């Protein structure tokens, strides 16, 4: 059994163990005149605070609190557990009160965004890595050319770099050849393509249609060019493909980072509402606990 499988089984075992412990304690607590919602509520709040602490842990890397990987896996296990606790805490019904509805909606949004983040963090990196391998049958060089993994923060730099390369090719073509075809093609079709990230949604869903359409235009243009210009167009096509790959990386990495804009900020809102919920519950418990 590979270490990955072992780790996976350890995680499954951890989740099952945590769930079992909670269900056992909840079951024991139910044998009391205290409301079991108090128990599940406290466990849920503690779990949410622990989940939120992962963000704090990432801001304090210098404190030896365990590896980030361990935190992440525990974050995932506890996160799954909160679904169970939440369902039990709400007695499998959505609240009807305004405040509690907002609170429940906040939790569900945070939790579902977490599941979404987990899914894309499992899928998108693989797609990014396999981009070159799946689309090309060439060797290592092809993979480097078309499946290059880039740092997200550097993408604007590379985009500028590719645009400059393309512009150099077009200018050289214009100097060496009397034909304005490539320059016009660049001005009409490629200038905007290189200026910004393009085809965001199509890249996220993994569609190659925009590139195919652009390549079709290259084919149309090619028939009107001389041999020298065709060589330039071939180079330009390579730059366009590199830009397309860069956009692909940008789109997927942007999604990989942007889901946290829902997950993290709403967690703080959830904590504020959860604490106020606790105050209301204790103040209006009517003597029960």
């Amino acid at each position, binding site marked *: 059994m590979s270490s990955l499988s072992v780790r996976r089984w350890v995680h499954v075992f951890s989740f099952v163990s945590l769930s079992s412990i909670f269900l056992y304690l909840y079951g024991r607590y139910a044998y009391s005149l205290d*409301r079991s919602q108090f128990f599940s509520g406290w466990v849920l709040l503690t779990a949410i605070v622990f989940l939120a602490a992962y963000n704090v842990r990432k801001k304090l890397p210098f404190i030896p609190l365990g590896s980030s990987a361990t935190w992440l896996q525990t974050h995932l296990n506890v996160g799954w557990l909160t679904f169970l606790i939440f369902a039990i805490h709400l007695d499998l019904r959505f609240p009807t009160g305004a405040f509690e509805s907002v609170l429940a909606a906040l939790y569900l949004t945070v939790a579902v965004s977490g599941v979404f983040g987990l899914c894309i963090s499992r899928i998108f990196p693989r797609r990014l890595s396999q981009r070159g391998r799946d689309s090309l049958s060439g060797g290592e060089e092809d993979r480097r050319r078309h499946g290059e993994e880039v740092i997200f923060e550097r993408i604007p730099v590379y985009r500028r770099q590719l645009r400059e390369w393309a512009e150099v090719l077009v200018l050289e073509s214009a100097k060496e050849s009397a034909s304005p075809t490539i320059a016009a093609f660049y001005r009409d079709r490629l200038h905007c393509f290189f200026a910004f990230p393009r085809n965001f949604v199509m890249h996220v869903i993994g569609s190659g249609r925009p590139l195919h359409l652009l390549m079709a235009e290259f084919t149309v243009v090619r028939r009107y060019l001389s041999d020298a210009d065709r060589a330039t167009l071939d180079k330009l096509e390579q730059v366009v493909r590199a830009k397309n790959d860069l956009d692909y990386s940008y789109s997927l990495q942007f999604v990989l980072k942007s889901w946290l*804009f829902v997950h993290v900020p*709403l967690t*703080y809102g959830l904590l504020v509402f959860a604490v106020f919920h606790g105050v209301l519950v204790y*103040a209006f418990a009517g003597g029960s606990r």
Partner: protein
Amino acid sequence: MSERLQQYDHDKSSYERPPQHWMCGWSSCGRPCYGGPDARGRCVAVAECSPVRRGDKWACTRLEARGGFCSPGPMPDGSCSQSIPKCQPVLSLRGKRGVSARWVSAVALGALFFLVPSPQGQKFISPGDISSKHGSLALSCGNCHSVFQEGPTGWFRAAFDPPPKKDDSARCVSCHDLGKNSGRPHSIEPQRISLIQERAGKRKALIGEAKLDARTASAHSLPCSACHSEHRGRHFDLRSMDDRRCQSCHMASFAGFGRDHPDFSTFPYVRRTPLIFDHVSHLGKHFQEGEFKSRAPSECKDCHLPDPSGSYMLSRNFSRTCAACHLGQILGEGRAGAKGVAVFSVPGLDAETLRKEGFDPGRWPRDAEGELTPFMRFLLSGNPAFRRAEEMLKDTDLLDLAKATPEERKAAEELAWSVKEILFDFLGKGHPAMKARMEAALGRRMSDAEAAALSGQMPLGVLRAAQEAWFPRLAAEMARRHAASAGEDGRKAAQKEEEETSRGPSADEAMSAFGGWYLQDFAVYYRPGGHTDTFLRAWLDLSAGAGAQGILDRVLAVLAGPKAPGYCAKCHSIDAAEGVFRVNWAGKQPEVNLHDFNRYKHAPHFSLLDERGCVTCHRLNRRAEYLEAFKGRDPARFVSNFLPMGKKDCASCHATGKARDNCLTCHNYHVGKVAPALVSAPMKMPDSKSNAGP
């Protein structure tokens, strides 16, 4: 294109710091400066490198990643010639996320600060609709939650208060009256729980004792909200409760009724039946006899029908059940002795010996030989002279006073005149005289209705006939006796009294004749007029209420004896309760709103029965000494006509996956009187304004 976009060499690649909050403003153009902004987001870039002096020259130090050495090189003064234009630093993704988090937190807090104290705040924080039965309370949280009036700051304080301080149960019980023990377990006093545990005996371990121990239960007060959860929707059943709530005190956990619940012991028979009816002898013997066979009921429902709630099977009334066979018995048909009960009588007295010895009992019937009836003893007990005489004569044979002492003879004379006095009194004053004597005997006032029932509305004619038969010259004798004790004025008054008495009482019309009274020999008898005879019932109630040691014990003995006229006690059992007796005139009658620990509804089960019908559960116990239990007065000492039911009788259906088997299916939590919510409405005429009609 074979050139790679990304270089990782130390001099060809800058070090990215995604956690930093600020980025160079030129990043979006793809030309970020090397140093980037400072931690506060200020642009600190000046030039692309910091030239170094090598010998007498300044050398460029620009990184290869930034283009390497620049061709102009440093300025003569050693400054870089490639200055960097100032930028407006932008937030990194991490920075933007941080700002978003702060905004969301601020919005959440702001929403609470503005919404909660607002007029809509109450609706906002409400956790959901309250049940429709409490719908009228939904106007304000303060109707149920006392802390609501204190406002948000008060709520924060209250959240940290101990639970008893926040107990709002008083507001619940202001409508739902559960008595003074409403907050205690099962709404009953702790002593009763102790008693239950004692009775549980061996089963105590199964019931559990930790939290309901009487020693600690008195300190426990359970708020209503411990079990009843509001704000669960309009149609939520506030009485629904998880079995585990019960098991929090009843420590022995039951996984299911059919599996772990203790078996029943004597269920459902917890006391003897109020009405004495031996099912075994009736079904096995009387209903089979030819004379009664045609009148006997053929089905259980001929005698038992469910009450309106469907819970209890009640006995139908006398006329629909017992009367067919027993009415004549009550009337005295076939009775060998007297068909009625002697109420007034002339006791046997050795009057000749008294006269010989110088005493004056007056005229006394020679053939009288009975004893004073218990009724007369009671009516005379208000007379101190009679009581002394009775005490003196308790061991004396009144029919032979030859060997009696002078004191006993004097007492016998007093007794004789007491008997004449009461008869004379009744003849002269009628029922008011009887009422006065009963009040004197009881030492308390008596209502006219009670006196009327106890007098049996005795007709004067019977008394007058008795007087003429027993004491023909009663008026003259009484006048003479009164005169002798009252002097000359008394004699005149006595003469007047004799004249008036001879004319008969003036209240004849007020004492209309009722059937049932008759004269026989030297006693006036009352013969029961049928079932629910008022006279017998009144005297039985009075004598039973006086208890075993009262002055009416002999009356009770006469009326409740096995062969007593009317045979009341043949069917109506008499229970001892707190020193007195109580006659059970009716079978079990469910008291409205009175909850017991157990509950059962007969009606829903009828359709489940096969041809055995009621016998499916109520199996006759042929060996039961049913009637033996009624010789005593303790209703708890009994033998049922039926075999106790077993758990299996119920568990065949009430099991997991079949019919309900939770605790509250068969048990009530609140025990005792659970009164409905009532308001206090003052009894006064509304004023004209508030009662303005059309």
